[in-house]
């Protein structure tokens, strides 16, 4: 056994996770980008993306996913999502009001590029929800575990 298998769950879980975690991530992106056409949207898609990182974390042990996406970067991404949402709302002030849909007649209803700023707002909310949830997960679980291991 190589050193990689010392942390996390068994080899079966790791192999299945390696095959499926990309698909879960892709499904989250699909849900976000089609939020204005089909069921779903920024909330559900953001939580799905956070769950794909959580899946990596549970299968491979804490160090892998915390290496891809550290606690500091979750804070930065969450703030970026919030700022993007607020910026879209503030640009609307130029055109008539807070949260004015200034891009609106930009495509046929039903196409991927339609509905004005709603897809952009979906992306902002998904960044915020996904990074916030993954930051909570890292704080509550992974870092706690490191702490209790270093005490022993």
């Amino acid at each position, binding site marked *: 056994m190589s050193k990689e298998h010392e942390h996390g769950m068994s080899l079966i879980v790791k192999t299945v996770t390696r095959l499926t975690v990309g698909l879960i991530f892709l499904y989250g992106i699909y849900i976000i980008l089609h939020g204005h056409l089909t*069921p779903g*949207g920024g*909330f559900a898609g953001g939580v799905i993306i956070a769950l794909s990182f959580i899946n990596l974390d549970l299968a491979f042990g804490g160090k892998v996913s915390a290496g891809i996406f550290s606690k500091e970067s979750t804070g930065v991404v969450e703030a970026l999502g919030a700022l993007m949402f607020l910026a879209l709302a503030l640009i609307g002030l130029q055109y008539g009001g807070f949260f004015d849909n200034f891009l609106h007649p930009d495509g046929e*209803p*039903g196409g991927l590029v339609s509905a004005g700023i709603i897809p952009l707002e979906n992306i902002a909310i998904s960044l915020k929800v996904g990074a916030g*949830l993954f930051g*909570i997960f890292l704080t*509550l679980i992974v870092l*706690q575990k490191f702490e209790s291991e270093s005490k022993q």
Partner: protein
Amino acid sequence: MNAHMPYILCLILFCIGIYAVLSKRNIIKIILGVVIAEYAVNLFLILVAYKAGGRAAIFSTTEHIAPQSMVDPLPHALVLTSIVIGLATTAFMIALAIRLYGKYGTFDITRMRELRG
């Protein structure tokens, strides 16, 4: 059968959650009670929005759907935000429970009171 039967079952679910909050000693059980009560509130809003024989509030490009046949979309939007807020507050309650466990070494709220001071 009463025309309000789903609402009554939903109220019973809410009361089960409140019962757990009022009478249990274990902090994890109290968190579970809050989660169950929150689910019951979300369910009540969605039940209010349902229209018998209605369709989901999504238009299609290939098929014409009459707007009058749709269920009420407004409570759906409110519940969508409420669910995510519920997850955030649950996480905050878990953080408080972990801190209390670290300080007192127990999840029993009555013994936390004895150890005060």
